[in-house]
């Protein structure tokens, strides 16, 4: 038996899925998080059922990529499959449009009336008995977020049946209107003060001010939390507990030799310097856990908060006009923000863009000009000693590049720009357990992705030095690295490793003691030149070989132009 969760975007399907299967699925306040099909298991009576969370859709006549997936899956239903149609009780009318389409499939179905508490709160009363009668289907009110009513839903699954009601399909919205009139009573529909205040964040002027404030505060919070965790917790832990242990290991290994330089690396003044030693057990663990994880944690904490209180769709509305200057619309702010955490989910989120043209622009822009949090953290470690002006130069250059490249792509890519069409959900007080779960899941997936690649990266660095590969690469790339970009020949190794992990690559530059100019150029070049292998894999999957080649060509051309001119300008300015 298979169970399919179907419903409009943003009605809580993913939350319900998590409740049913006990599996983790990221639930967020914007559409597109479940484009990838998530599948889990659920015990029904004595048997096990496979549960699939289908992408949100308003209709079975698909208008976007995600909706096509849903329509295709539903056309291939087997005889003992059950459709669970998840409805938004606060918005019965819109939800029922899809329900009537589903009824036409004549498959066993159950209706889940989600957000039942919020509906009651806003004065919407639905007569479940009358609705069951009107649709000819079992209906179960529930609150997926807290789990209320979910058991009743599971118990109702064996009673799932195909409706025998006939609906006039062409006039289905009139049918919906008639049903809603019969089953729903709205007792008070006055608009709360909170609602009115919430609208301020949607107005062009007040909204822009609020958006700038929210973003400014977010970045400040990320910086404070990340910096604080490193300085007060992780560095003391590594220095106080891990270092003495590593020095013992160093003694046991005899203080030098291949194994010593592989595991511990170079000792600096007889001690371990986590930024320069470059052994698997020293720098290899310090980079993911102490240098990068604190910022990644801080970033996802803030992002998850913004998501769960419902601010992101408002940001998309405010950013819409601005995003049109780079050929996208407001929704594209989501892949950009996610990319700032890690380019992999950023590229995945690029799929919420409706047309191939928009997907190409969004992914290329994100992969080229949006550095991930791991890289940002290491750039802060590398360029921080040169002060705020160095960091401002690096991130200012990337921001300007994002804008200019976007305008060029908009003008050169054929096709008409798509338009924003977005449901703006009400503000919600974040449900803390859900928030903690989501944060935990994101951190785990970051560590699972980062640690193997960081270790392989550090291993490669050691092998390269041991086999003198870096010298050879340095000689071959001399015209670009040294003549054009003005970097020391050893930095060629960082460009090679950067394909694996950008944070390790930036870390490799720290022992080179680069000048102010070289630090700026190298940081910017590493951010642009190529996405890391994990992001690259996603982009190949989404854009195809041809699209990826185009995107890659754009990145290479961009890095040579931007890196070369940055080097020249800084030289002329006397750095």
């Amino acid at each position, binding site marked *: 038996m298979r169970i399919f969760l179907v419903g409009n975007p943003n009605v809580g399907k993913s939350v319900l899925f998590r409740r049913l299967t006990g599996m983790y699925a990221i639930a967020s306040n914007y559409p597109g998080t479940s484009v990838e099909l998530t599948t889990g298991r659920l015990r029904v009576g004595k048997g096990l059922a496979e549960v699939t969370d289908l992408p949100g859709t308003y209709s079975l006549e698909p*208008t976007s990529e995600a909706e096509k997936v849903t329509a295709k899956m539903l056309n291939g239903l087997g005889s003992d499959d059950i459709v669970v149609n998840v409805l938004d009780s606060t918005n019965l009318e819109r939800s029922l449009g899809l329900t009537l389409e589903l009824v036409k499939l004549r498959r066993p179905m159950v209706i889940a009336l989600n957000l039942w508490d919020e509906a009651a709160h806003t004065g919407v009363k639905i007569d479940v008995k009358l609705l069951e009668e009107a649709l000819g289907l079992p209906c179960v009110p529930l609150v997926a977020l807290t789990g209320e009513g979910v058991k009743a839903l599971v118990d109702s699954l064996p009673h799932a049946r195909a409706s025998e009601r006939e609906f006039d399909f062409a006039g289905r919205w009139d049918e919906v209107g008639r049903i809603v009139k019969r089953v729903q009573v709205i007792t008070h*529909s006055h608009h709360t003060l909170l609602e009115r205040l919430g609208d301020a964040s949607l107005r062009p002027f007040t909204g822009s001010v609020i958006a700038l404030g929210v973003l400014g505060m977010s970045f400040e919070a990320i910086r404070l939390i990340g910096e604080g965790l490193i300085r007060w917790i992780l560095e003391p832990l590594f220095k106080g507990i891990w270092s003495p242990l590593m020095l013992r290991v160093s003694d046991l290994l005899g203080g030098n030799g291949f194994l010593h330089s592989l595991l511990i690396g170079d000792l600096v003044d007889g001690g371990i310097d986590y930024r320069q030693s470059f052994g698997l057990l020293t720098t290899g663990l310090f980079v993911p856990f102490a240098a990068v994880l604190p910022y990644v944690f801080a970033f996802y904490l803030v992002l998850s908060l913004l998501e769960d209180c419902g601010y992101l769709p408002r940001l*998309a509305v405010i950013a819409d006009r601005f995003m049109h200057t780079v050929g996208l619309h407001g929704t594209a702010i989501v892949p950009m923000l996610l990319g700032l955490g890690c380019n992999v989910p950023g590229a995945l989120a690029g799929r919420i863009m409706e047309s191939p043209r928009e997907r190409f622009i969004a992914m290329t822009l994100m992969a080229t000009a949006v550095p991930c949090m791991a890289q940002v953290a290491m750039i802060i470690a590398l360029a921080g000693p040169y002060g705020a002006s160095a960091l401002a130069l690096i991130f200012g250059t990337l921001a300007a590049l994002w804008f200019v490249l976007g305008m060029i792509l908009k003008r050169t890519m054929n096709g008409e720009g798509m338009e*924003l069409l977005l449901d*703006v959900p009400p503000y919600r007080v974040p449900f803390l357990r859900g928030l903690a779960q989501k944060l935990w899941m994101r951190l785990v997936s970051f560590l699972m992705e980062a640690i193997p690649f960081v270790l392989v990266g550090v291993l490669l660095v050691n092998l390269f030095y041991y086999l003198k590969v870096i010298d050879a690469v340095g000689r071959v790339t001399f015209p670009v690295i040294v003549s054009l970009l003005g970097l020391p020949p050893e930095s060629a190794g960082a460009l090679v490793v950067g394909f694996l992990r950008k944070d390790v690559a930036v870390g490799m530059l720290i022992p080179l003691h680069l000048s102010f100019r070289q630090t700026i150029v190298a940081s910017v070049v590493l951010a642009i030149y190529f996405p890391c292998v994990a992001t690259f894999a996603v982009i190949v999957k989404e854009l195809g070989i041809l699209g990826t080649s185009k995107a890659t060509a754009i990145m290479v051309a961009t890095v040579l132009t931007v890196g070369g001119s940055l080097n020249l300008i800084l030289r002329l300015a006397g750095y």
Partner: protein
Amino acid sequence: MRAGEQGTVFEIRGGISVKRRLEAIGVRPGVTIEKLTDSPFGGPVVIRIGHMRLAIGYGMASKVMVAAEKAVAS
């Protein structure tokens, strides 16, 4: 139609795909809407239908024909 005004949708001009997308999300002839925001620089228009708020890109929004009824005191 200005921000703060209410009206009834009477026609959606434009192609079948625009119509279908707007219809599915709840913007249909006969539906009463309130326009919540103006868009001085061609930004999106935010409307309210019941408790639901929708943001619609400027171009698409200009295809929704509305018979304005009255200004809401607010």
